[in-house]
């Protein structure tokens, strides 16, 4: 009989999604994350019998979006937990550049594709609360990308930027770049942070 005590309600009403709208504090925080990105760093590309170093330095200019763009997404179809994507895009001031083997390439804008996991309901410390995918873009004064908005009808490639530095940040308190790579004229090289 005890088994029968474990009653389920057959066909209970399901929970409604409860997506929270981002607060002004949230939006401000996402912008602050962009502002806090390392203004300079040096990376190493390990090739066979040779290490190639490159470094960048940037100075943030005007933001392209008045505030970061956000989008909330429920994790499951029958749950009220969700995570949030946020995107930010800021022009870089003149003088921002990446130096590769002595060659200087101007960096024109920074694009951040971020993920806020704080509303996912998962509090396991192994999961990062924030993930930021950072693009330091060279030679694009319009800062349109990463995808080519008119592709394939307007010709060209699916992606817009032929040269950029990319890395991910999973701990915004120290802004440590991870999973770094550099794309130069469409060639990509995995990189390691040196300093």
């Amino acid at each position, binding site marked *: 009989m005890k*088994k*029968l*005590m*474990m*009653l*389920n*309600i*057959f*066909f*209970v*009403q*399901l929970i409604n*999604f409860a*997506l929270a709208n981002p607060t002004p504090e949230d939006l401000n925080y996402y912008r602050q994350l962009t502002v806090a990105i390392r203004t300079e760093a040096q990376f190493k590309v390990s090739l066979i019998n040779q290490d190639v170093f490159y470094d960048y330095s940037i100075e943030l200019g005007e933001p392209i979006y008045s505030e970061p*763009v956000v*989008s*909330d*997404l*429920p*994790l*499951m*179809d*029958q749950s009220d937990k969700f*995570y949030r*994507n946020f*995107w930010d*895009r800021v022009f870089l001031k003149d003088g921002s550049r990446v130096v590769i083997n002595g060659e200087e390439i101007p960096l024109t804008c920074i*694009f951040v*594709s971020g*993920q806020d*996991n704080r509303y*996912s309901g*998962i509090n396991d410390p192994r*999961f*990062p609360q924030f*993930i930021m*995918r950072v693009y330091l873009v060279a030679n694009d004064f319009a800062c*349109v*990308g*990463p*995808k*080519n*908005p*008119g*592709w394939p009808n307007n010709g060209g490639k*699916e992606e*817009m930027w032929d040269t950029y530095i990319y890395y*991910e940040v*999973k701990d915004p308190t120290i802004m440590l770049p991870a999973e770094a790579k550099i794309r130069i004229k469409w060639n990509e090289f995995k990189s390691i942070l040196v300093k």
Partner: protein
Amino acid sequence: MIKKFALTKLLALSFVLTSCRDGDLPKLSGRYQGMMTIGNSKTQIITQMPDFKKERKVRTLNFIIYPAMASAVGENYSFKLLDKETIEFKNARLNNGSALLKLDNNCANGASEPQTVAICWEEGKLTLSIKDALIPEKSVLINLNLDNGLSQLESNKILSVDELVGRAKFNNYTVAQESERVFQAQKNIAVARGNLLPKLNLKSLIGLATGDYLSAVETVLPFLFPGNWYRWDTSKELYQAERSSFASLRGNEMSMVEGLYYIILRDQLVLERLKKHIMWMKQIQESIRQSENVGTVVKGTAEYFGTSIANLEKDKLNLEVLVKIQFAQLAHATNLSPINGISGLVPVLTPDLSSLEVADPSAFYKEAQEKSYELKSLDYLLKAAKTSQKEIYFNFFDLEGSSGIGFGTRSQILVSKSQQEEIIKKSEETESLIELQASVVANEYNLALDSYQLAKSNKKLSEKRLNWLISRLLQGDDSIDSEEFVNELTDIQYKILGFAADEATSTQMWLTAKAKLNRLVLKGFYSDLEAALPEGPVKKSNDEHLSVGGDK
């Protein structure tokens, strides 16, 4: 026209003068339905009033009032006419169990402090009130009307399985045509579902939809008299046969309504999950669209993703229509308005199916045979046939009878014996059929348990994979920008939706099998199928209107 009116008035006056004399009680026997009000709560009630029973010079009327619920237990009421002025009223609601009432025209009033009792009657109507001065919320008001049917309830009500099966139980199927309501409902929904299925892309959502519906609402046991058979024959055996047969029909109708109820609940659950799934897909689409706007996803991706949503929307529309049709059919089957009779169903509590033991038909088929109204009915028919054969023999001694023993007697006896043989064979066939049904029901019951385990296990595995995907997403290994990732995420959610629907289908199958099992062994809602049926045949007396204190 004026002449006709005057004649009606004259007839009405003569009726009042002859039937409602001071101290007289009108003939109350018949089937009544009405409302019982206790405090603010109103309950639909049913009763079958017998004739007054006469013992020495005292007349007694005992009857049971049943709330129109399948599980309801009846409440006993008793009026004893002690003399020309006094009625003893007995009911468990009275603190002292009884009260003496003084007759006053068509009413009887009395008190049993702190309660006061008032009973009033007129042709086809009875009102009973028990007022409690100390606890007013315990006061009871009963209004009964002579009526073979069941009155409509307020429209747009949310009803429970107990209430709806109760309505099926207390519907008075005076002709077979009335009992056809439930069958029509079953057939019409089967047609609706059949029309829906070819269009339904989400076949997995419906689980065993092609077969489960019919098996869910089919009759457990056969009807024995598929005609206009509720005449409550005055022959004792035939009357008992009719009574048992009615109880059998009633049980089948209740079982079908119960089956319908569970199917609608299942479809509603599937529909709700589907709606949530669509809503989630739209959120994903919105997120993809936002990704397009910021340039992380190729333009047109969100639009293409919308085609998957469109297919689901089509399924949702079909399922919504099906649920509406089912609601209408359930309302029709229970004598409610198909348009706005039922606005919702109360959810049902179920045990954890994974911990239940399997059903063994050998453990209950004997009980089903012993309790079977179908076999009882045949047994009474056999007795009636034997009595009829005896009558042929004894007709010889009936001097006033026209059919003595002659050339046709032997043939008559042979026909009668053949009829008895036929009934015996029918009994054997029914016994075997009950055993077969016990086996079928046990298999359905066990299949539901196995299907539930399978669906639960598959759902768990899919959820595990979903959690793995979400972990990847939250770790930053993948993102909504990746088409492969989105496809896998939506695919796995879709599978979970299907397994959840299978789980609901298994629960519905189990509930239906349980209902059939209860129907076979006459338990649960089916434990009192003879409630509110007319009592056995009584000799017709000439005094249609009974008088207080004996014959006048």
